[in-house]
């Protein structure tokens, strides 16, 4: 199908982009990788009056690690850039595990991490990773920048906390302390399918003792879930089997799955517990499944 008519502009700078967005208020949409938005306008589930294509703003195409170890991901950093990034495997195992599991290889060429967070699909993978890592989103508008914690960024299915006229320019992962471990495990019926269930785990430890734990759940609720009780149950402990079992049970308890074509609620809850156990036991998902 053809999208309905819209005005299209491809600004060359953020300043130009803000001016264009201001003209059209909430009738305007930012076009990043287009891998969620174009399917929607093609099927006419969305009919924005104006698309502001940010692909021509080179200053948004980056991801880098700061001296303190925090990671910044620009709005035009593609899933594929992260999948191939030499920065991730060592210090950012949860991000490294998730990148190759988002969508399929061709969609990953275009789709962006920041766009995925903005799209706020309850089945999206990156939001769980950001919840586990206590990530933040930097929103910028004509009046300056503000930082929105990932836990506050999604306000409902397909709804984010941006004001009309704002662009999410960057996602940020704070620096970890101590030894970092973690993973992202995803059960999908086939490549390119959204998760039946997915679990992001991020652990920081010193001398074998957990000092911070993050657990995010995908596909098992009306949105991505931060399993706070499960996280807290790990802090101060070493990852012994009984500690792991308790966290797995708490995470499964935090899940709110619904029975659908991907599986029963009970099954999904079971998968959550299994994935939390595996991720905490140091199991790394095979990258090429």
């Amino acid at each position, binding site marked *: *199908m*053809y*999208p*309905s*008519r*819209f*005005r*299209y502009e*491809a600004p060359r700078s953020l300043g130009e982009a803000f001016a264009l967005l201001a003209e059209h208020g909430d009738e305007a949409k930012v076009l990043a990788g*287009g*891998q969620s938005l*174009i*399917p929607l*306008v*093609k*099927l006419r589930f969305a009919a924005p009056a104006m*698309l502001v*294509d940010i*692909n021509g703003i080179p200053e948004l195409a980056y991801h880098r690690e700061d001296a303190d170890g925090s990671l910044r991901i620009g709005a035009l950093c593609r899933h*594929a850039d992260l999948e191939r990034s030499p920065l991730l495997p060592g210090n950012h195992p949860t991000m490294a595990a998730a990148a190759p599991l988002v*969508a*399929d*290889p*061709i*969609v990953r*060429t*275009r789709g962006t991490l920041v766009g995925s967070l903005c799209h706020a699909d309850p089945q999206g993978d990156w939001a769980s990773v950001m919840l586990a890592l206590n990530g933040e989103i930097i929103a910028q508008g004509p009046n300056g920048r503000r930082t929105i914690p990932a836990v506050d960024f999604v306000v409902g299915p397909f709804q984010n906390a941006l004001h009309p006229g704002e662009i999410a320019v960057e996602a940020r992962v704070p620096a970890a302390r101590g030894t970092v471990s973690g993973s992202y495990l995803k059960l999908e019926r086939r*490549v*390119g399918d959204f998760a039946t269930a997915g679990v992001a785990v991020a652990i920081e430890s010193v001398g074998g003792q957990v000092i911070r734990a993050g657990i995010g759940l995908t596909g098992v609720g009306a949105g991505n879930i931060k399993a706070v009780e499960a996280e807290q149950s790990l802090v101060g402990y070493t990852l012994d089997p009984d500690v792991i079992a308790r966290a797995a049970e708490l995470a499964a308890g935090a899940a709110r799955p619904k029975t659908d074509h991907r599986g029963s609620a009970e099954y999904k809850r079971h998968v959550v517990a299994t994935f939390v156990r595996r991720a905490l036991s140091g199991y790394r998902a095979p*990258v*090429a*499944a």
Partner: protein
Amino acid sequence: MEERRITVTVNGEPRTVEIEPRLLLAHLLRQGLGLTGTHIGCDTTNCGACTVLYDGRPVKSCTMLAVQADGHEVTTVEGLGTPSELDPVQEGFTTEHGLQCGFCTPGMMMAAKALITENPNPTEEDVRWGLSGNLCRCTGYQNIVKAVLWAAEKQRAASAAASTDVTV
């Protein structure tokens, strides 16, 4: 609604066209430029039959606007080789019977071309992974994987020969 004049380099040749911004790249290629080798197999960005190279990287042309290609390079299956001089990927699909109905083939070949350009020596696993965004309803994939491995080997041999030529 206003039309836009854009210039896209398609298979090495600059093409200037007037289009509406809502036109999809796949439709520009097929209807606007008559390059019907690029197939459209779904409405949901799942099948990959429409895969083309955009500045050398594989994209689903049904999920990009034609206007986004302004000033960029697009390579379609028509630009892969010529009947007298097939690309190693095309030869591989012929030799290893990498197709049955052929509907998925143009997209498969473009994805394969991108794959072996980035990774000239892929394992079978790499090929299966790299082509996992392209669906085939006929072959069961076995011969497609063989075709791509064949093409990678051919391409390696060709570039080895080329570098010997230079040093001799």
